[in-house]
């Protein structure tokens, strides 16, 4: 692992981000929503599911969304080949490219949480869970970015992923029958598990989120192998 190479990619992406108006809006989205919800809450503490809704929006729009678009663009414009033909290893490239996303994710998330009240998340278990959950979305984004061939195609994947994994807490409001199959499935989704963690504090929820993250890593790895084969 070479720190110089990782930081070179990070610097490049940071400069590129400041010039890419397409990406500028995304980190603002959670902040706007946070303002909106905290106004509705009349100064009372917001329920956990609203807080996790914002977490879900941040992670799906900023974390997964950025990674997807940045990887897809490198592939579409064929600049990824310049990186892979350089001494940089694939791991170095992934880490370098993840840094801008990480920075923006946490800047956006922390501002949004400060607006809404960060209290419910200020405990070790929630923090650990949030970090593991971050990696789930990060790898999901990298995987999809390697999977699709153009930036345009990322939007087609982004919407369903945002709804499934980002807006999971909203499913409850869709009026499914109590105990229905759909609700049971959604209850195992990472954000739902995080809400449960906040309710009962059981480590098992962190375990399930970790499994999702491992799944996302495996997905990214498969997509990576695939890109190597069709070059």
């Amino acid at each position, binding site marked *: 692992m*070479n720190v110089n190479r990782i930081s070179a990619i990070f*610097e*490049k992406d940071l400069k*590129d981000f400041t010039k890419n108006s397409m990406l500028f809006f995304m980190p603002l989205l959670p902040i706007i929503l946070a303002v909106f919800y905290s106004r509705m809450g009349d100064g009372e503490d917001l329920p956990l599911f609203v807080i996790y809704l914002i977490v879900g929006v941040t992670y799906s729009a900023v974390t997964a969304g950025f990674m997807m678009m940045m990887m897809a663009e490198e592939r579409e414009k*064929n600049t990824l*080949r310049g990186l892979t033909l350089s001494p940089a290893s694939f791991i170095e490239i992934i880490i370098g490219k993840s840094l801008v996303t990480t920075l923006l994710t946490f800047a956006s998330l922390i501002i949004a949480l400060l607006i809404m009240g960060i209290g419910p998340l200020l405990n070790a278990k929630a923090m650990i869970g949030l970090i593991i959950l971050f990696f789930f979305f990060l790898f999901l984004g990298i995987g999809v970015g390697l999977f699709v061939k153009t930036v345009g195609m990322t939007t087609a994947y982004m919407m369903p992923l945002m709804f499934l994994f980002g807006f999971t807490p909203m499913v409850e409001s869709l009026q499914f029958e109590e105990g229905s199959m759909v609700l049971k499935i959604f209850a195992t989704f990472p954000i739902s598990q995080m809400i449960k963690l906040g309710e009962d504090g059981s480590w098992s929820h962190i375990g399930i989120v970790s499994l999702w993250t491992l799944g996302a890593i495996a997905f990214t790895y498969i997509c990576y192998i695939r890109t190597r084969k069709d070059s």
Partner: protein
Amino acid sequence: MGHIIKVNQVQKKFQQTTALDQISFHVSEGEIFGMLGPSGAGKTTMIKLMTGELGKTAGDLEVLGKNPDAFHRSSYKAQIGVLSDNSALYDRLSVLDNLKLFCKLYEKPLSRIDEVLELVNMWGEQKKIVSKLSKGMRQRVLLAKSFIHQPKLLFLDEPTSALDPGNTAHIHRSLRKLNEEGTTIFLNTHDMQEAADLCDRVAFLHQGKIQELDRPSALRYKYSSHAFHITTFAEEELVIENTPDNAAEVAQLIADGAVKEMHTDNPTLGDIFLNITGKELV
């Protein structure tokens, strides 16, 4: 001098197509080696086998003393430079920011940027945003990028295709200078003039096989009809075999002051390619 590339009986198959078959050649250190062939001949595939982007189906391949298992290693990548037919730069960034990235990836001092831009005649254009560059300028920056780390071996895949003569000349001049400084160059082209101008040796690639391999001048000699082509002042066109028997006849024409023009038959590489394969080089 040692061989920097050794290729022996290499074959590459994609599902049904055999892109390369029974390919054998060596490239010496310091050489400019050309692979000349029409589109679809297998040139790009050959480079990709040597950059580790594709794996061979059969045969032996050794580059810089390493076999393909080592082609993905950083130590190997640091020694090769690649300018492929679809190499790209970061459009929204300046020339300088693009080259800075690669300087750092290869852990070279940033002073290299001025050196390489100078060599491709782009000095003074550092601040320009890549998306604002012409195709020719972009290609010159890509070339600069490909050797910013002073690679021992440079792979170029049709570096001047679709460029105007001015930019082509710039690129040819840069390549000669680089080669003088010791870089070995492996050049794919379908431009016979480019091959003739730059290459110490060329291989003719057609339908995945090498049809001929030699110095351009040797190929010209081999495929020449060895005859004098004489135009007289009477606008007569004569073709006289270059043999001792014909010495008197030629001497007489000269003595008579009848010779307006005289040259030996000198086929271009394009003529030779057509002769061997029955195909034009496009």
